[in-house]
């Protein structure tokens, strides 16, 4: 099944898992090649990613910028710490809202799972307080999206 799970672990971790019906090679490419990333890493309906830079090498940097075409805008920047082709990506990222949030350390693994891939993303925040902030910021974005949806319905 392709159902996603999102759970917290301990005080500082957030874990996301998802199965894909594609090889680890393909899922890894979709996480590292900008022209592929731009097609799916978009969040709520109506948002696009006009800027997508990913240097895809250890020590390389990345920058993703999102826009909703109505003045809504935010971006994340980060560094790639470790890349194990088709298996693992370790990176550090922060959101700019526009002030930078504390660093989120993210390890993404791509493991063969039957004929597909099990992706496991493990985020580590500096402390419990930051995780709390991150989850509530995410929720705020969710809320904004829901308000936008309400707007479009009326």
């Amino acid at each position: 099944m392709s159902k996603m799970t999102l759970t917290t672990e301990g005080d500082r971790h957030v874990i996301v898992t998802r199965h894909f019906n594609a090889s680890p090679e393909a899922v890894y490419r979709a996480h590292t090649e900008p022209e592929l990333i731009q097609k799916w890493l978009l969040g709520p309906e109506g948002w696009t990613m006009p800027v997508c830079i990913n240097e895809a090498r250890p020590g390389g940097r990345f920058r993703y910028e999102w826009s909703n075409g109505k003045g809504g805008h935010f971006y994340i920047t980060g560094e790639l710490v470790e890349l194990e082709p088709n298996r693992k990506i370790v990176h550090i990222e922060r959101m700019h809202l526009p002030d930078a949030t504390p660093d989120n350390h993210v390890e993404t693994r791509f493991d063969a799972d039957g004929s597909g891939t099990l992706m496991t993303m493990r985020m580590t925040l500096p402390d419990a307080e930051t995780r709390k902030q991150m989850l509530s910021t995410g929720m705020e974005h969710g809320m904004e999206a829901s308000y936008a949806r309400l707007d479009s319905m009326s």
Partner: protein
Amino acid sequence: MERLDAAFSALSDPTRRAILARLAMGEETVMELAKPFEMTQPAVSRHLKVLEEAGLIVRRVDGTRRPCRLAKPGIEAIDEWLGMLREALAKNYDRLDLVLEVMNSEKEKEKR
């Protein structure tokens, strides 16, 4: 109906929505809630009063502290919003499924 109006009106303010989002993670005092905002404690207290009157939060007495937590309707609303965050992430991965499908069919074409 009046309650619902008050709740919607309370939710129309981004600071109050942020306060509710914070409270979804557990009980907090006014001092703790004021931290992430560039706001004085009295200003935060005013927002809390609006939320309390709208039935979105409840406060209890703990010595000199009056910690706040979400009231049940607030919790239900927040659950819905957490669901939306999950939904936004899930939507990303549903889109990724389609990207992977296209990548796969292109690869098949190359083989032929």
